[in-house]
Structure formats: C-alpha cells, structure tokens
C-alpha cells in the first residue's frame, strides 16, 4: 500500500516534468497518408452513443489536415462499423490492423467491446485510445485509457455527497454488467472504510434497457425515508435512464430529498430526456459542456459548425477523444514517426490542454490526469458545476479498494514495463510474457 503510493507519486512527478513543448523534426520522406482507425458502432444498440464519437474523430482529423496534417503527411480516417456486436469488434480491429494497416485506433465504448478487442490489439501490437469512463482493473501495453478510472469519477463524487451534502445512506443502483459491478464494489469498500454501516447501503442491479422502475424506485423511496440523508449512486446505463428518471419524478422524489448522482448520464443522454423534473440531480464527469472556458466554447462552436446542428451537444467521451487525439499527435511529433513502439514510449508524460482549462498528462500506467467535476442537471439539459477537485487526479489502473488489486501497480516504462506489478511479491503477474520483453 504505502510503497505503492510512493511509487505512483514519484511516477506522476516525473511524468509531469516530461511535459513537451517543442515538436520533433518532421519526417522527411512522405510515406503516404497516416491511417487513423475509427472503431465505433454506427448501427445497433450502441450507435446512440458511439456514432457521435465517430463524428468527433472525423472533425478532429479534418481540422488537423487543414492545419497541414502530421509529420507533413495527411491523416486518413478509416471508419468501420462493428454494429454493436462484440465478436465483430475483435474482427474489425483485426481488419483495421492487419488489412488496413492503420497506425492508431480510436474506439470502443462498452467494456465488453474493449475486452473483446484487447487481445487483438496486443497480438498485432496496435494502439488503441479508449475514451469512456470504465471500471479500471486493467492496464494494457497497447491501450491508452483517456476516460475516467473509478478513482477519477466515482470516489470523488461520493466524497462530495458525504462531505458537502452530508449523505449518510447510500443506494448503489446499476445495470448488471461489469462496470457498475466493479464501481459499486469499490464504493462499498470505500464507504465501509468511512464508517458507513452495511444496512445503510442498498445495492440493486437491473438488466440492460430496464424500463419498469416502479417497484425499485418505491423501494428507494422507503429506504430514503429512514431519517438519514440518502443519495442514489447510479451506474445505470444508457436507455434505462429515461424511464428511471421519469419514475423518480413521478413518484415525487426531488433532488433536494434524494439526489441521484450518475456516472453514465451526460449531455447526450439528457438530450433525450425531458429534464424539467430532473433539475438538481447530479452527475460526475471530467468535462461538462457548460464548463466556462474559451477552449470549451471554441470546441463547441467547431462542433456545431461541423454537425450543422445548432442544438448539437458535446460530452465527456468527446473530450476524452479530443485529449487522446492531441496526445497521440504530440507523441508522434515527439517520436518523429508513427511507429507503434516509438509512440508508446514517447507518449508517456505528454501533456496537452483539456477543455476545462487545465492540462491532461499521460501517466506511465496509460491513464491520464483529469479534473473531477460534479454538476447539477439544469432545466436546459446542461449541467452546472457545483464542485470540482482542486487539482487534477491521476487515473488509477488498479483500485486500492479491491482485495484482488490493491497491491498492483502498472508502469509501462523500462525497467518495470509491467501492467500489473505486485508491489508485495515484487513480481509482474499475469501477462508474464509481456513483461519478459
């Protein structure tokens, strides 16, 4: 535990000192366009969330080309559609790397799609930038996690509720898949560490697209009426949210009584909800469209211009792609080549501005530093930031609150070069062959 903390502290210090300013000399010979693979579902159930990320990438690439491309070469997007079908994700990743020979892939949303792509990317030694908040417990040499790890979203949010709002009783409600499961596990452990009794925690899981929330919401209502301030920590996924919030509103649960803090509800989800009754419910992200910085306003203007929709919204995963793309860009400049191994080494420590007025730095564990923002839903489908971490938080690949992983750290620099180094046994577990390199 202690050792680990020290190491991570050291790493982050070092990483931050590495911040790049100058770009490496442009590669002389033009070797044709640099291919950027985009692996987001354009059809099927995930199209709702993922198609906008595809457009974001196209926008960023277009812009980069207008500014003269990269290393004097144009960027060429290669778009494929894994159609929300998990095996197809693996197949398409293989297609991108083996057939189209792309230099980098930006893509995936769901955990399962990432898990399915992971072995392929590692086998063919590709680069994958993954833009969505996820459950952690993973660190791959070939994957860069630009979304939030649990310690960059869940835990700060709970802290806020505990300290600022004085919540004593917790409902952990989530869709039954790995992200909520893990997040809730971490939160449970964390809450108990902070003296919350077992019977002050209620955990509930529902299937994907669950639409009939009546009894669950009424349970929450009763659970919340025991005299202690209660909050719901929601890891409910996508489509299930609309009926959930509707039911909350109709059963008269106001944010003032039982606030709901959500980790999967962003501006885009809200754009499909009548937010009137939701005012005051919370969400924890690393970016909000309402953030009051010029960088953000410029980004929004570009986005509106690109989509041609005045009401187009931006959200956290889009920012993650924005950051990821710029980091990759910087790393390529720094390395002077798109060669995967070179970029992998170069990118660690790269810092680029985020949209919330700070900097994001790539950590040696392939996670990045992010500020954590807590926002309250407004009647216009936006969030107003009510609290944010004083400084950025470094993503933690392995949670300190899970018995399996509390002794694990990840550092992809030589000499350690290991995704899950056990600081107690001093050995690189699991993917030993990777460590052997």
């Amino acid at each position, binding site marked *: 535990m202690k050792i680990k903390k020290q190491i991570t502290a050291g790493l982050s210090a070092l990483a931050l000192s590495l911040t790049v300013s100058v770009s490496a000399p442009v590669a002389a010979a033009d070797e044709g366009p640099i291919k950027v693979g985009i692996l987001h579902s354009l*059809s099927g*159930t995930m*199209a*709702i969330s993922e*198609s906008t990320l595809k457009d974001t990438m196209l926008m960023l690439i277009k812009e980069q080309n207008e500014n003269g491309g990269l290393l004097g070469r144009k960027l060429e997007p290669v778009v494929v559609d894994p159609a929300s079908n998990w095996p197809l994700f693996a197949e398409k990743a293989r297609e991108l790397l083996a057939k189209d020979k792309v230099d980098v892939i930006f893509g995936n949303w769901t955990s399962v799609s990432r898990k399915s792509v992971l072995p392929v990317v590692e086998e063919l030694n590709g680069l994958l930038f993954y833009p969505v908040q996820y459950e952690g417990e993973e660190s791959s040499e070939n994957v860069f996690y630009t979304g939030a790890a649990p310690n960059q979203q869940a835990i700060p949010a709970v802290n806020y509720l505990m300290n600022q*709002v*004085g919540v004593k009783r917790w409902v952990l409600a989530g869709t039954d898949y790995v992200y909520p499961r893990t997040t809730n596990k971490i939160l449970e452990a964390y809450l108990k560490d902070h003296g919350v009794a077992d019977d002050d925690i209620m955990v509930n*899981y*529902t*299937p994907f*697209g*669950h*639409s*009939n929330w*009546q*009894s669950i919401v*009424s*349970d929450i209502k009763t659970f*919340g*009426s*025991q*005299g*202690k301030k209660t909050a719901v920590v929601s890891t409910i996924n996508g*489509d299930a949210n*609309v*009926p959930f919030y*509707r*039911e909350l*509103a*109709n*059963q*008269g649960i106001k*944010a*003032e009584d039982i*606030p709901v803090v959500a980790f999967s509800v962003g501006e885009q*989800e809200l*754009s*499909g*909800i*009548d937010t*009137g*009754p939701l*005012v*005051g419910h919370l969400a924890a992200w690393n970016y909000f469209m309402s953030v*009051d910085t*010029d960088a953000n*306003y410029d980004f*929004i*203007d570009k986005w*509106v211009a690109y989509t041609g929709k*005045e*009401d187009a919204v931006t959200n956290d995963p889009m920012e993650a792609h924005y950051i990821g793309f710029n980091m990759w860009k910087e790393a390529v400049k720094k390395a002077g080549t798109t060669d995967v191994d070179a970029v992998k080494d170069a990118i660690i420590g790269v810092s680029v501005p985020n949209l919330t007025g700070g900097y994001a730095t790539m950590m040696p564990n392939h996670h990045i530093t992010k500020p954590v923002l807590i926002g*309250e839903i*407004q*009647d*216009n*489908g*936006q969030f*107003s930031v*009510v609290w944010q971490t004083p400084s950025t938080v470094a993503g933690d690949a392995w949670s300190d609150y899970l018995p399996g992983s509390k002794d694990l750290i990840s550092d992809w620099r030589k000499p350690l070069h290991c995704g899950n180094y056990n600081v107690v046994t001093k050995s690189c577990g699991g993917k030993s062959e990777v460590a052997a390199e």
Partner: protein
Amino acid sequence: MSIIRSLKQLLIVCLLSLPVLGHAQANDEQAQSLLTQLADASYAQKGKIAGEIARSGDERARGWLEAFSAGKLAKVEDSGKFVIVLSNRGRNWTVQDALTGDDLGEISRRDLDTIRVNNSLRSEIDGILSVIDLTVNDADKRLEAARGLRGNVDEAMAKKLTELMASEEDADVKATLDEALAIYKVEEQGDIGAVKTLSGSLNSEARAALNSATYSDDPALKQAAQDALASIETKLKWNRAAETLYFGLSLGSVLVLAAIGLAITFGVMGVINMAHGELIMLGAYTTWGMQQMLPGQPGLALILSIPAGFLVSALAGVAIERSVIQFLKGRPLETLLATFGISLVLQQLVRTVISPLNRTVVTPDWMSGSIMVNEALSLTLNRLYIIGFALVVFVGLMLIMRKTRLGLEVRAVTQNRAMARSMGIKATKVDIMTFALGSGVAGLAGVALSQITNVGPNLGQNYIIDSFMVVVFGGVGNLWGTLVAGLSLGTINQLLEPWAGAVLAKILVLVFIILFIQKRPRGLFPQKGRAAEG
C-alpha cells in the same frame, strides 16, 4: 448543518419583517451590491445573502430569488450587469435586466456568468419562499408551505408556527403544522405527547422522528415511539400491497397496449408481424413530431398524437400489407422473416432520417406527478392514464370486432376465406383494413409508451418479444386472452420482482410461459375453428 441554522434565524427575521416586503421603494445601488455579494459569495455564504435579499424589502427580491434558485440569475461579464435569463437553450441566451426589467435580447453564453446554486441552497430558498407563503391567503399554497416545513422546524421557528397555528383556520394546514411541530418536539425535546400526534402518520419525516426517538434512553418515550411505529408499519403493509398491485396493473396495461395490435395482425390474420415493434416506434415518434410542431403545449400535442399516431402507423401498416404480406398468404412463417426485414429497415430509416439519439418527449403537467391517496401510497399519474388508455383501446377494439360490419367481415374471412369471398366480401379489402387496424393500434401504444420510456430507434425491439409472449399466452386470435394475459403477466412479474429481482423475475415469467404452453398448447383461451396455425 450550520448553514441551515443560520438560515433559520434569518427566516424568523424575514417573517417578522414581512409587512415591509412590497411597500419598500426600489433601491438599485443596494440591490446591485447585494446581488454582487450573492454572485461572489461561497455556497456557504450565498444562503445568508439570499436571506438579506429577501429581507431587503425590494419588491423585485422574490423574482431574483426564484431566478437564482432556478439557476437563471446571471451576471454579464464585462458590464457586471445582473440579468435574469429567460431562455437558456443553445449558445445565445435571451436575458432581461434584473434591476430595470428591460429586455436585453440575446447574449452569448461566453459573456454570462450564471450565479451558481446547488441543492441545499435551492431548498433553503424554497424554505424562505414557503415561509413567506405561510401568510398568504391561498390555503393550498399554505398547505404546500406547511408540508415543506415538516422536518425543518427549529426552536425559534416553533414559536412562530404556534402563533400561526392559532390564527390558521384551514383544518389541513393546521393539522400539517401541528405535525411539523410534533416532529420538532419529538426530535428535539423527546415530548411523548407529540408522539401521540405522530402515531398513525404515514409521513416519512414523522417516521424518521419516531425512529430517532426509539434510540432515546427514556424508556417511556422509547416504548411510545415503538408502539407508534408498529401501528404505522401495519398501515404501511397494506399500502405496499396496494402499491404492488397497482404496479402490476400498470405494467400489465403497458403489455396489453403493446400486444393488442399484434393480437389483431398476428392473432386474427395469422401474420407473424415482427415489424410490430417498429409500428409502435412510429407512434412514439409521431408524438415527438407533434410536440415539435406545437412547441410549448405538450398536452395538446399529446392529445393530437392519438389520432395522428394511429394514422401514421396504420398507413405504414397498409404499405407493409400491400408491398409484402399480400404475397405471403398462407405462409405465416415466411411473413415472420419478411416483416423482420421490414423492422430492420424501419429502424435504420429512423436512425438515418431522424437521429440515432433518443428524442425528448415532454410529459404534460397534467400527466406528471402522482395523486396522493395517502402519505405512503401515491399513484403515478402517467401510469394511471396509461391504464385507462389501455382499457379504452381494448373496449374500442372489442366494439369494432363485435359490433361493426368490418369486425363481422374480418371474422368471416378468417373463419373461411373462400366462403366469405363467395358471399361477396372483398377479402383483400378486409385484409388491408384488418392490418391497418392492428398497425394503427400499435401506433396508439407508441403514443402511450412515449410517456414512460425512451423514444429511440430501439423502442420497438424492447417490446416485440413481450408482445408475442402475451398474445401466445393469451391464446392467438382472442382479444380477451390478450387482456387477461397482459394483466396477469404484468402482475406476476411485479409480485416476483421484490424477492427475485428484476432480471430473475423476467426469466421466471418466460419459463412459466414456456411450461404453460406445454400444458395448453393453444394458450389461455384457445380459438375455436381455424386457429392461426403455423
């Protein structure tokens, strides 16, 4: 919670100074400075300043506070002018000068600093406003205010309330205030008499107070509190039972709505219409479209969507029937494949033409919220309406099938096509009409569903399987069967859910259906004669 405490003090002052409110003359410098303080203050301080504003006796104060709590009080960055935001959608907001009330037109979001507000502030301000409301003549408003006070009373306020109660003539308000006081007394003073007042109250705050009392060291109080709680619990049990039943019925009625159209196309015509879900979806999107066309009056739009939704889906149905199904007479399993193809096309069509994202369908006020039977049991309005709607649709269909010429012809054709033909019934026309009817009803279901779930391209898929289960379980070709099946499956599901959990409940229901079909291969109410056979 020191903030709350300090607020409470303020409340009293502001209550005492109420008469002043309104008569005072506008004082812009003071206002400007107050608002500036408000803007710059930390969350902790904002409450205090809000109190001062309320006390300032400026007749604009109320407007400011409301705007503030709605997050619509903003400061123009360069001029430092305070504005009230009228519309905060898009990148440019229309605003109005907070002091002069002049219209300032649109200002870019970049140049505006909204004064941040959070939940606790919001409730504080509501507190302030509600206390002000306590003295207005409108009894309902007073009742609202009194309700809001339960659990927020403190010593100083208690006095004030006792005075108010004396002058209060409305019984409900009086009772509520009494309850509010009792809660305070139990919590702060451990007053056994107050416990009596609370026993039997279903209000959660009251229960909370009693709960806390059971931890007191005074055995008498402890006992009294426990007894009170016990009596409440028994009351609650009944309420919960009633609630579960209501949940079951509402889920059931949703199932019935979703399935009843299929009961026509599949049950009566024997068309395994996999595109049924998408016909529902069309209905939902019609509702959305209507609301887009009539901005600002979602209620009217919803009403109009009922015929519109029916029409849209019915027309789509006709198109499907003419273009595909008529070629698949007597090949039901093929209709399954073809219509499945159609459903894919319709989904993708919506994705490309409208958007892959969900659409916002606003719930009109008269449909949101719930009617309170008592403090513990309240029936959510939207579902209540849907139950009613489902029944209306069902009765309507029954009448059509039983009483109208069309119904007669439909039954004739399905019983014996050739015979019906020879009796001069235009079978093709009947087919079209029947399919249109079934599809139209699906559209109606869509209109209803738009009020409880996502309006998105996947809407249909989420209901198609359930719909088939309901129809098959009820017995193909039998509307009554569909009704009974829908309601019973819904109720079973809701009864199972509390102990089995949502997922397991659904699984169990499915398994139950499978086994039931073994026992009665033709469903609850088997159809006589030529049943819709594979």
